[in-house]
């Protein structure tokens, strides 16, 4: 049986997201066997149980439920993805306890933050935010994750500085921090050695043919497939370009364009990561390559003429003939079951949300709380909004009340059982 399971596991390997702590193989088998037909009712029931526990919890340690719920989610949805709700869960969990000082250096909470950061597009921002808020500053795991992120981006010097910061804060456990720091140093030194070796054969990277490239041309003009020549066919051309490139670079001092040199500035800068005192998390910067969503059709590109005035591109000429459409070619009339995509926008007509990053939402949450405290809010929802929306899925009033009802009946039945037992004991003792 174990063998068959192993095969299953092998077949779905690419759909399993790696976890820092690894996966329980039994949970993995179960999750993979259920994968074929969507989340089963058992999974839904378990999730519902966690969701209601989140809302009904009355003990000292609410983080515990979140922690267990998130770990369960990771194990149950090995492929991650939207239906696991993991990203939402992490965000909610992290946001919920930002005000709770007692959790700030709780290893579980710090772990949640790190998982959250790894799910974000800008993990470094999150780590800096954590530092500014004092979350996890005495936990070795923060510095390890942070340093790994720097290392992944190829900045091993910063990665090292993060460790120094960790030592300064005497983060716990110290041995773990030391161990990871040593490993980093070993990797860096090996890399330096490799680089020295690499320098000897300074061959430029071989150009390669682009695989999976777009061959179809979708425009009105004739199709041109991208052709990338490789090997000797291209060599002469590239050499020619290189020789041309040199004099242009030589002109750089004359031109107004200042070229940013990373190495120069970094060597001049202070040698430890700056401690920024942030009132609020940073907005998502460094996104120059991401375009804001907007309509692309019907947009005219303003074109600059030589004299700096903008001229509009002439509209494309309309065809002077009527395109022929065969009469029989009309789609057969039937009841519209599938909604025409052009009209579909009308059915879900809520405007697309403005660009939101998790950090932005965190920031907004803070602001919202402050406003609520100072009583500046213009609107107030007259229901227990927090309870309905905590967790990954929403609840309605009736569900919340049903949970309370089930809890109460459960307690009552337990009491009854207990009193019956007591009575039985009493009668037994009287018999004796």
């Amino acid at each position, binding site marked *: 049986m174990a063998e068959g399971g192993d095969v299953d596991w092998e077949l779905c390997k690419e759909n399993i997201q790696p976890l820092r702590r690894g996966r329980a193989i039994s949970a993995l088998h179960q999750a993979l066997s259920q994968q074929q037909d969507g989340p089963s009712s058992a999974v839904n029931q378990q999730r519902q149980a966690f969701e209601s526990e989140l809302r009904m919890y009355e003990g000292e340690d609410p983080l515990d439920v979140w922690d267990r719920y998130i770990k369960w989610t990771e194990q149950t949805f090995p492929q991650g993805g939207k239906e696991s709700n993991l990203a939402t869960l992490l965000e909610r969990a992290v946001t919920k306890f930002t005000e709770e000082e007692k959790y700030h250096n709780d290893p579980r909470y710090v772990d949640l933050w790190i998982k959250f950061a790894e799910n974000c597009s800008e993990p470094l921002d999150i780590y800096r935010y954590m530092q500014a808020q004092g979350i996890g500053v005495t936990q070795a795991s923060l510095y390890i994750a942070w340093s790994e992120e720097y290392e992944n981006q190829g900045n091993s010097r910063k990665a090292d500085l993060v460790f120094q910061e960790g030592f300064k804060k005497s983060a716990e456990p110290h041995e773990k921090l030391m161990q990871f720091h040593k490993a980093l140093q070993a990797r860096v030194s090996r890399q330096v050695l490799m680089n020295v070796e690499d320098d000897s054969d300074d061959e430029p990277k071989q150009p390669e043919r682009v695989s999976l490239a777009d061959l179809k041309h979708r425009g009105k003009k004739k199709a041109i497939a991208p052709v990338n020549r490789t090997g000797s066919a291209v060599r002469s051309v590239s050499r020619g370009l290189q020789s041309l490139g040199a004099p242009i670079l030589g002109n750089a001092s004359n031109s107004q364009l200042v070229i940013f040199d990373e190495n120069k500035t970094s060597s001049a800068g202070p040698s430890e990561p700056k401690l920024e005192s942030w009132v609020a998390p940073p907005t998502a910067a460094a996104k120059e390559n991401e375009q804001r969503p907007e309509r692309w059709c019907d947009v005219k590109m303003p074109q600059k003429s030589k004299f700096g005035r903008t001229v509009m591109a002439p509209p494309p000429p309309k065809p002077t003939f009527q395109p022929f459409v065969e009469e029989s070619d009309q789609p057969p009339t039937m009841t519209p079951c599938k909604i025409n995509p052009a009209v579909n926008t009308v059915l879900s007509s809520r405007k697309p949300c403005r660009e939101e990053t998790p950090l932005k939402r965190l920031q907004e949450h803070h602001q919202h709380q402050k406003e609520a405290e100072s009583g500046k809010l*213009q609107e107030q929802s007259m229901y227990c909004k927090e309870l309905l929306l905590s967790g990954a899925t*929403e609840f309605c009033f*009736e569900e919340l009340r049903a949970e309370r009802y089930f809890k109460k009946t459960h307690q009552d039945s337990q009491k009854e059982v207990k009193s019956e037992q007591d009575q039985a004991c009493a009668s037994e003792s009287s018999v004796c």
Partner: protein
Amino acid sequence: MTGSNEYKLNQGPEDSISAVKFSPSTTQFLLVSSWDCTVRLYDVASNTMRMKYQHTAPVLDCAFYDPTHSWSGGLDAQLKTHDLNTDQDTIVGTHDAPIRCVEYCPEVNVMVTGSWDRSVRLWDPRTPCNAGTFTQPEKVYTLSVAGDRLIVGTAGRRVLVWDLRNMGYVQQRRESSLKYQTRCIRAFPNKQGYVLSSIEGRVAVEYLDPSQEVQKKKYAFKCHRLKEEGIEHVYPVNAISFHSVHNTFATGGSDGFVNIWDPFNKKRLCQFHRYPTSIASLAFNNDGTMLAIASSYMHEKGDISHPEDAIFIRQVTDAETKPKST
């Protein structure tokens, strides 16, 4: 507080009221389901309770199949039918989680239940037995029948339109046009569309025909909000009921108000006085001369002390319910 055109029902339920439904054929009988685990039948004309029967847990919804049979379901996940003549119970079947809604579709002659187990089940009322289980993407919060079409509102603000004659596939998958949780969906008696209310003081009027001209007519508006000391208090809109003749509808909110709207001229026709607590359910009778109003705290703000649960029967006039023709 109650005028000459309105009275309170005697022998009301002992806990919160979950639904009120009028008989399909007479103006006399009203079915009421409640959190006190009972379903009660009232004779509205004589203001007496005719009958009540028990579930093992709170009842979340009930519906008439015909004037002599009621169907109901609730937290015990059991669907019961009760013969109102002989006072006989039958358990028809079960869901895997509590049953939230029970409706009858006369066109296809089928009972429809929606549950938090993420499914809609159909039941043949003659046998009676299960006639199919249909998985929904989320927990079912509300459903309504428009002719032979079924409109299901689930958690996660999803709306699904099914064809009850062909349940093989979902006819339309929509997203609620409102930003917050769906509380109630009711179909127009003319079967053209439906009205959807949300937890944050808003109501949307939607049309089923997916063509662009028809879809242009849809709209949403704010309601059930009270301004107090510069702060706008936003209340959930819990109940909708359509006037069967005029296609106008009443909405009830947790603010305790009942409004009647004219969806064609986009006007409010009238607002009644404020009821003691949240409006949990509303029902017009079959000829639209009476409105049953369940004023019952729904634990929106937790388990706190609240005014007594009560059902009011109000005579409504054409002036209050008929669209003003201009």
